[in-house]
């Protein structure tokens, strides 16, 4: 019985080095995806800026509202502390003229 002379090589791993490269379709797809990602980032940033604008607008509205309330309160305070109101107040009306009895240096 004769052993096959080629058996010795059955389990030999043979490696063949060949240069790998993406095909043109893959390249186009990847480029497209990259462009899409960059575009999405751009849109996201734009939307983020716009969101800030809405937030800013809302805050400005609140500030304006609070300022108006502050002005209203200042006007009311001024009305309540006006000379005429003070002079006509119950306390002022009930006051009597001071009687001067003497002076001290």
């Amino acid at each position, binding site marked *: 019985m004769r052993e096959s002379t080629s058996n010795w090589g059955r389990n030999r791993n043979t490696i063949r080095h060949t240069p790998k490269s993406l095909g043109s379709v893959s390249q186009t797809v990847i480029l497209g995806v990259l462009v899409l990602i960059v575009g999405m980032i751009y849109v996201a940033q*734009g939307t983020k800026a*716009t969101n800030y604008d809405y937030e800013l607008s809302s805050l400005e509205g609140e500030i304006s509202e609070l300022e*108006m309330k502050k*002005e*209203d309160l*200042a*006007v009311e305070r001024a009305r309540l502390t006006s*000379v005429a109101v003070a002079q006509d107040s119950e306390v002022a009306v009930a006051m009597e003229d001071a009687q001067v009895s003497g002076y001290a240096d």
Partner: protein
Amino acid sequence: MKKRTNILRFCLLFAVGVIAVRLFFIQIIQHSEWVAKADAQHTLKNTIMAKRGEIYMMDGDEAVAVVMNETVYTLIVDPMMADEEKTKEVVEEYAKDNLVAKWEDVFKNKTRRYYIVARNVSRASVEKIREEELIGVSFQENTKRVYPEGELASGLLGFVNLDGKGQYGVEGSLNTELAGTNGLLKTVSDVNNIALSIGDNNIKVPAEDGKNIVLTIDRNVQYAVEKALANGMERTGATNASAIVMNPNNGEILAVANLPTYNASEYWNVKDAGSYINYVFDDPIEPASVCKTFTFSAAIDLGAMTPETTYYNAGYTTVDGWKIENAYKGLIGTVSMQTALGWSLNTGSIQALRLMGGDADAINQSGREKLYDYYYNKFGLGQKTGVEIYEANVAIADPNVGNGRDSMYANMTFGQNIQLTMLQVAAAFSSVVNGGEYYTPTIVAGEVKDGEFIEADKKEAVRRTISETTSATMRDMLVKARKVWKNAVDKKGYTVGGKSGTAQAIKNGQYVFDETYATYIGFGSEKGEMPAYVVMVRLWADGKTMNGGNDALPVFTEISDYMIDYLKLKPTE
């Protein structure tokens, strides 16, 4: 088959050609036009309104707002959309006092989309109405001036018209400072008109708010003066009254009152436009015998006379052929200059003018020129004072140019043939009694910035009018002159002096005999001290003869008494 294809190809080419040409027109030829249209749609261009500055008065050492801003709303109804019954019910409940339209008119024509139903609706009311979620009701925001002190000092403060422009008084004179400068916002906006920061040509120039001006006016003094004037008008039947109170030691004006006052927030309801006038600053008048104070000051300062100098009072004197009489017909004989001032004898002030010229028997050029020098150059009579707000143009007659100079100058010694504002008279009088220094009257105390009162620089005296000795002599003469009037009853323990004036009114350039107005000017102080206040009062009414001593003096007394208390002057037994 090929023919059809060619036709189709030709049609397609033609269509493409048409589109290309059209695009060329739109993008190249009409480029600017379309860019402008696009910009108009998505560009927000708003004026950022500057906030009008508030006006403050003093309350002792504190500045308090007397003219403020308030946000109010105009209520607009869209009759086509609005529910008539519900709208009426809600608006009547919260804005009844602000209605400017009748409901039947609002809903008469339901195709109309815009009807102003109420104005000056408060923010609180608007919030209540908004809670009702009415359809077809909208609001437009506005700012209006509010006056927490009501009609106080209305003649001085003025008002702001519907265009937002200051009219009369402080509002008119200092409009530029109060108005500020509007800003600009130009930016890309979304469909809701919300400004977005995207875009390259956004502009935001912030508004510069108007100055918050603080007046030297003390609101307590102002209130007391207006009250005293009102009492005086009631007592005498005068229809108008004005007064000014000054601190003679620095020129600060503490009160400027003009009665009747008006409601500046509804200035359009004023029937007599005369109410808008600040008579103290804007109305030149013949100040009458209060001017004797200046004539006597000049003559004493020149050394031409003393209070004890005597002359013969015949009850009249003749100048340039004109007989000039005294108002008071008594005291015929030899009298002193002190008596002449106290009894307001015109012959006395004319004699002072003669003495100034060095000739006791006649008025001469030297006397006229000397009086002019004191009146115009020293006391500033006949020229604007330089106060920060509007004042009338006035003039004084040249001592040498023109006919009848002697009689003209004789009349000027007792305040006729000369037109002055009360402001000028009060400022000059202050220098007579304060030791002889003239201060430019001032009404602006500073400004309020970021809630803090920033005081303006104090003004220095600008010139000497008379010597300190003359000033002391004049104070003494004025105290004695005041005592001539039996009704001049002052608080005990103080020095109060003054001079009355009764002037003939001038109508259409002619003196009239059935109308005189009453003036009084005086000062008050602790005994032996410099005057703490100067007050001038004027009362008048059409067709009424009024007298300085009887009608204006009591008003002065009331104000003087108040000032003594308010300034906490210490009495001396």
